[in-house]
């Protein structure tokens, strides 16, 4: 039987994802650091690991190009893909928040129409819709916090971890929209046609992630 493919997101989830795969015994220690290869063979060849852009990760899993994947909940919420979300791996904790420039934060609930810059257009639309507010969404691919300072948007909806980027850019959080951690997702066909192999990987990663979060706590 050919090996299972696990997709891992480059960027902020990369290190913890790789460490979890190491702890589960799939990757030799630090092997991922010394290479620029996008597909890594694993210790016992039952699994191979591919590295994808965070925004593309769920595409690989949904289409079955990867059987499993480690994705941020933020991407799952934003993209609404048809994949099984089975385990909260616990790492990569962050929040999706609405933030405004300090001087306008107090008035944010009465601004209308409201212009929001974000990498999460669907989550933004859903959030403001649920509040009964009309919103004009300005979709950006990075450095969203710049937008209010140059008049591109009134506020932003973005991920925050420590909140430092917000304060450095004179933005203050006004509302929390979602909380995100890394999730283990599975393709719906792999879950069935390769049930046993997939379950083994799911359980080993679940155990490894739980052990890592205990030791770091």
């Amino acid at each position, binding site marked *: 039987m050919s090996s299972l493919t696990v997709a891992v997101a480059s960027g902020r989830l990369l290190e913890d994802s790789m460490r979890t795969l190491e702890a589960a015994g799939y990757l030799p220690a630090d092997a991922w650091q010394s290479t620029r290869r996008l597909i890594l063979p694993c210790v016992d060849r039952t699994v191979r690991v591919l590295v994808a852009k965070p925004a593309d990760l769920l595409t690989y899993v949904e289409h079955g190009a990867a059987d499993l994947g480690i994705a941020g909940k933020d991407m799952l919420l934003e993209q609404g893909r048809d994949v099984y979300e089975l385990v909260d791996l616990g790492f990569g904790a962050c929040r999706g928040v609405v933030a405004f420039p300090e001087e306008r934060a107090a008035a944010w609930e009465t601004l209308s129409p409201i212009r929001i810059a974000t990498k999460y257009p669907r989550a933004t639309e859903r959030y403001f819709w649920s509040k009964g507010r009309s919103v004009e969404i300005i979709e950006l691919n990075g450095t969203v916090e710049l937008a209010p300072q140059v008049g591109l948007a009134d506020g932003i909806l973005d991920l925050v971890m420590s909140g430092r980027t917000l304060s450095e850019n004179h933005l203050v959080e006004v509302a929390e929209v979602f909380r995100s951690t890394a999730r283990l997702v599975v393709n719906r*066909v792999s879950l069935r046609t390769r049930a046993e192999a997939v379950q083994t990987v799911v359980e080993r990663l679940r155990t490894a992630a739980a052990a890592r979060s205990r030791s770091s706590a």
Partner: protein
Amino acid sequence: MLRRERWQQVPPGMRDLLPGESSRARRVSDRILSQMQRWGYREVVTPTMEYFDTLIRGEGTEAGDRLFKLVDRGGELLALRPEMTTSVARLITTHLRGHPLPFRVAYAGQVFRGSETGSGRLREFPQVGCELIGAGTLEADAEIVALAVEALEASGTQGCSISLGHVGFLQGMLAGLALPDEGAREVRAFLYQKDFVGLRAILDRYGIPATRADALSQLPVLSGPGAIHDARRLAGTAESERVLGDLEDLMKRLAAYGVGDIVRVDLSIIRDFEYYTGIVFEGHTSALGYPLLGGGRYDRLLEGFGAAYPATGFAVRVDRVLASSGPGESTWTPDVAVTFADGARVEALRLASALRERDLSVTVEILGRPWDEVAREAIAAGVPRVILVAGARAVVRETRGRERSMTVADLLELP
């Protein structure tokens, strides 16, 4: 880069099929349909468009978003069919009311989805399916599942399998939780999204005991030979127990059809709870990340059309069957190109006609070009055989090998 004008494009989610691809699609569709016909399912054709009011009866709550809508001259709202079952239900209840039951009906055609965009999702795709209407028995379910296996086999799909579940199992489990309406809605929403992390969180929030919550979290692994046994320990309600008994019975019936090793019990199959009322199943191959086929029992649908017939059926996505077998080649060339010397036109046409009767695709030269030019271009374009007719004799040039001269009569004997 050259700017592409709007008129040069097709709308998102729609596509052209080139020669080769289109003949593969038709062949797959024909083979599946023929197999259904061998089981006594008679083909019907329904209109591509229906009244919105008709389709909404079959589509449940999300229908409005899913439908491709149009406005008729009189202002009536029409929609393109998003699947065929609703149209078949309308057809049966209007044309065949009072006929003896059951009805076995098959169909093949294009269906349309208004909302699906992005990540390669098609908004128009071909489906072939069948419905068994007017029989609520397990034997009817067994027939449909066995036919689903044969439909996939007829389609030429390698290594296919059917995952068989039942909406009643999950519903029984959910009923056993005694959640308030709001909670039950939320739980269903998480199940539809296949978000088992969120599901666990909401069960904890409603104070569901850990043993019950664990049971629901086990759902994604309730598949395979031990599934019914494992599920019995988790079932918790009489309804879930009864459903497991039915599935066991059904698997025995399927074993007699000789498809027991291709069908596996999979209680994690989640399909629309509002629409399906009994078994639900999907067909897969490990070569593709999407199901090839889906179906189940829908005993409530026909009630909406004024005839409370139980029904069960499935539909195959022809586009996905093709995708699972990898890319083919598109070919614009015929099997044989015929040209002729002065005065041999009648003989050439007669030869072309004889070859066509052997099911070959044959073109006859219409530009009046010299033999060598015709032959060179045709061979270069990939035509395997080019023929020059000159009275009772002919010259044959093939992709490989030299030119041969033979009588037209001998030519007809060539393999």
